[in-house]
């Protein structure tokens, strides 16, 4: 039997209770496993990475645990994570979007062409026009995906697979396979140091956190977000509850497209150019981020924060391969293994939980019958 906390407990005792509550809360959080993986992996890498002397002070710098590498990893993860939030929303609804890499490429290529056509503009106008173009193109692409999924009644896998090629082809045709430079004003935004110092660029990291935060709030704290879980969890029940399935489905593909547009703007601005081959194959990393983060491909389960953690895990695994000086061909094996492992373990865990719940329900029922 648990003892109730005393109302006259000393400040030390209540601090200890609060600390215990925080630790227990973290440990039992659905994201505790992923955070744990990242921390353990980071510890291993820090221990194994070796050091190099700082170019200015000559002091030893850990090859992994240094601010440059950590910010760089966050930058590398930001594209996957931002698109991963969109992919998670689609997956929660029971759909899939394979076209995000192509939407990324088309959005940034069109943006670069529009900016080139517009000629010199004030920096603020350049950024606004660039961002607006990226978002508009990506929104239209998402809308097209959604309309076709609903209107044609074909599985989203096929629709978005087809759109992946269509949009990639469009990007190729409109860009003539050129690598189009984007104005410096965009790069100045994406590479703003925000007072952190030379060669430290936290904007992609901040954008990733912002999109994840907004995605998390949208999914957990809004009615629209709960509706997405509802149709992904049980489509028929959602229909009988009076939800507009078409409107919700359309919305998730638009959101997915928009996240690709945000990632495209950041990518083109950060690296300074746009080509039709950009983000080729990224859709798989994005889906991997969502799934490793715990999203269920059958719908009804997932979280924006977990998708971000999934992206960070993938990037950390990639970094591990290089930091530990492994043959980089292990990258695909590790990511593939991690993805399969995560899904299999997740499914196994869900089955185990369902069995336990069923057993408990039976025990409760038999207890009632005896009494």
């Amino acid at each position, binding site marked *: 039997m648990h003892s109730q906390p005393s109302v006259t407990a000393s400040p030390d005792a209540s601090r200890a209770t609060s600390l215990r509550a925080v630790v227990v809360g973290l440990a039992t959080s*659905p994201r505790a496993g992923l955070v744990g*993986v990242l921390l353990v992996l980071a510890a291993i890498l820090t221990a194994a*990475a*070796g050091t190099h002397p700082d170019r200015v002070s000559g002091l030893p710098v850990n*090859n992994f645990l240094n601010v440059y590498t950590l910010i760089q990893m966050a930058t590398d993860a930001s594209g996957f994570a931002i698109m991963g939030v969109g992919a998670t929303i689609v997956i929660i609804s029971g759909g899939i979007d394979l076209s995000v890499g192509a939407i990324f490429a088309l959005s940034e290529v069109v943006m670069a062409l529009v900016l080139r056509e517009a000629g010199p503009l004030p920096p603020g106008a350049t950024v606004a026009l660039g961002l607006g173009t990226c978002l508009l193109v990506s929104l239209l692409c998402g809308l097209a995906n959604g309309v076709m999924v609903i209107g044609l009644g074909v599985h989203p896998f096929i629709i978005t697979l087809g759109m992946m090629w269509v949009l990639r082809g469009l990007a190729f045709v409109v860009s003539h396979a050129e690598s189009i430079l984007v104005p410096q004003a965009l790069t100045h935004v994406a590479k703003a140091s925000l007072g952190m110092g030379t060669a430290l660029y936290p904007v992609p990291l901040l954008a990733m956190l912002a999109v994840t935060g907004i995605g998390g709030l949208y999914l957990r704290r809004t009615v629209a977000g709960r509706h997405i879980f509802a149709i992904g969890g049980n489509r028929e029940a959602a229909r009988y509850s009076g939800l507009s399935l078409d409107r919700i489905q359309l919305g998730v593909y638009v959101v997915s497209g928009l996240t690709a547009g945000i990632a495209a703007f950041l990518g083109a601005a950060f*690296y300074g150019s746009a080509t039709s081959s950009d983000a080729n194959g990224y859709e798989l990393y994005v889906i991997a981020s969502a799934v490793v983060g715990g999203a269920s491909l059958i719908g009804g389960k997932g979280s924006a924060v977990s998708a971000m953690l999934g992206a960070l895990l993938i990037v950390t695994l990639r970094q591990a391969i290089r930091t530990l000086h492994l043959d980089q061909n292990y990258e695909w094996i590790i990511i593939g293994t*991690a993805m399969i*492992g995560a899904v299999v373990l997740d499914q196994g865990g869900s089955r185990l939980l369902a069995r336990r719940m069923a057993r408990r329900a039976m025990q409760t029922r038999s207890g009632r019958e005896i009494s």
Partner: protein
Amino acid sequence: MTKSTTALALVAFVAACSGKQAPAADASKTFTIAMIAKSSTNPVFLSGRAGADSAAAELSKSSGVKVSIQWLTPPSEDGSVQAQRIAQAVNEGANAILLSASDIGKVIGAVNEAVDRGVPVMTFDSDVPGSKRFSFYGGDDAEIGKMVMAELAKQMGGRGKVAILAGNQNAPNLQKRVQGARDEAAKYPGMTVVNAFSHIETPQDAAAEVLRAQNAYPDIQGWAMIGGWALFTKALLTDLDPKKVKIVSVDGLPAELPYVETGLAPVLFAQPTFLWGYQSVKTIFDHVYLKHDVPARVPMELIRVSTDNLGTWARQLRDWGFTDVDPKYLALPK
């Protein structure tokens, strides 16, 4: 619980893969060059890596400084990933970077930042003009395209329908080669370029593209291949008739030698891909460690390979570390 199990599995997997701990660098005794080529699945870059390792071993022996090559080439071509790898090399304390750029626009900022942070950059094969790199080792791509088409015209008597095998349409150096080939073809009124065919840069994709094009245009009599991808397979040896079709190609790796022997590709213009790494590493060491002046451009000459020098070329490939050279070519007198 499931996530915790996943955590343990992943950590165990990575630990198992790691095998050994990365050595800690000591700047007073080591000199690390990060090599970032376009793609680690392209044999020409693996040859370049062998050259870089060979030069590093020689320099380590002769100078007393441990020169090491850190291979940071992405598995497939991606300019953004190259930019990430450049930043990673700087973050991990590389002394210099050797780069073949997949996309100039994507890497120019990273190259300039690396130089600004004190890490000199040299390019090979595919340059980053306008950047702060100190030197480039490679050929003139437009000239290479012209050379291939001029040789094809010679083989075909200046007449007939030809096609260009173009590789990755986004690679700036290949675009220049294609343009060079087109410009040269325009000098021959009897020749028509039916098209330039792009493809994923793997041997199978390239060979499949050639066969698709040949089926679509049965009257193609000549191929100007601005990269040797398709000839890294044996597919075209059986599917194309040397009496009807002639190929002139860039590259001259061991797998391509049977094409010279059969006359399907009477001439190859071999890039000394081994020297991409070998020459570049020596140039970097000379400039960065020994503080010598080096030219901003180190010219790379292509080697004309035909039945006249097949044996000599085969032995050169063997000496450069290629282990898959057919002994029958090694036994040829010249």
